[in-house]
């Protein structure tokens, strides 16, 4: 994976990116295999290296529970930021949509690394905040659109 495509490493030098990647370990995932499940303890952050990982939430449909895909992550994209953000519980389920590989960065290793390299810690945290902020803005907009529709549905 080219370092240029890793959103978590945006702004880092090549050396800093290599050092950051060295903290992680590649995990292969079979198609349909869960990377993490909603509610599980989050002690790592992941970057997709190959394939595609679907983020899902359960919906109750016809007295059953079905996983509905909210978004999919492609190579270079970050998932599992709950690993760095309290209360460190995953709020979605991640499942490989294809045979995939993700790089797993344990929280403890990242925090140790950031402690000795605050500038790297700052940039990675800022990149993570951008990922989180974008998710928040997208879902806030989606929520407002649904709310608007609901108001029209009830009061038109």
């Amino acid at each position, binding site marked *: 994976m080219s370092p240029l495509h890793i959103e978590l490493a945006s702004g880092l030098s090549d050396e800093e990116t290599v050092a950051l990647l060295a903290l992680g370990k590649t995990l292969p995932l079979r198609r349909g295999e869960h990377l993490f499940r909603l509610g599980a303890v989050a002690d790592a952050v992941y970057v997709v290296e190959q394939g595609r990982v679907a983020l899902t939430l359960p*919906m109750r*449909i*016809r007295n*059953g529970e*079905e996983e*509905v*895909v*909210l*978004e999919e992550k492609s190579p270079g994209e970050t998932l599992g930021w709950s690993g760095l953000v309290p209360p460190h519980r995953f709020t979605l389920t991640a499942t490989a949509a294809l045979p995939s590989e993700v790089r797993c960065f344990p929280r403890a290793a990242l925090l140790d690394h950031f402690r000795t390299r605050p500038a790297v810690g700052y940039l990675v945290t800022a990149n993570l905040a951008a990922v989180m902020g*974008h998710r928040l*803005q*997208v*879902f806030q*907009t*989606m929520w*407002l*659109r*649904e*709310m*608007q529709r*609901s*108001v029209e*549905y*009830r009061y038109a």
Partner: protein
Amino acid sequence: MLMFLSILSMSVLALAVCAAAFSLATGGVRQPESRPERRPVVEPPQFFAAPPARPRPDPQIPLEMLLGDIERHIRLEQAAAEAFLAGPTLDGLHERPERRAN
């Protein structure tokens, strides 16, 4: 004396007629009673929790198709939200996703 009595009786009669007419005229008007103040019942906000009853979807629709529809809706809504964030306008915020898809 007779004349005096006639005038007196006519006056009493006229007074009685006036009193009867007045009571008839004002009989329907009642003073407002003091009642406890009525306040409009305000429903709690339940936009998502209790939508009005609508025809249920056909249970014959396969679950896979239903899930596909839900996920398609999410994808379109996400695309609409991304487009709004790229250039926020009021029209863009509430634009129907079907229009974007075309």
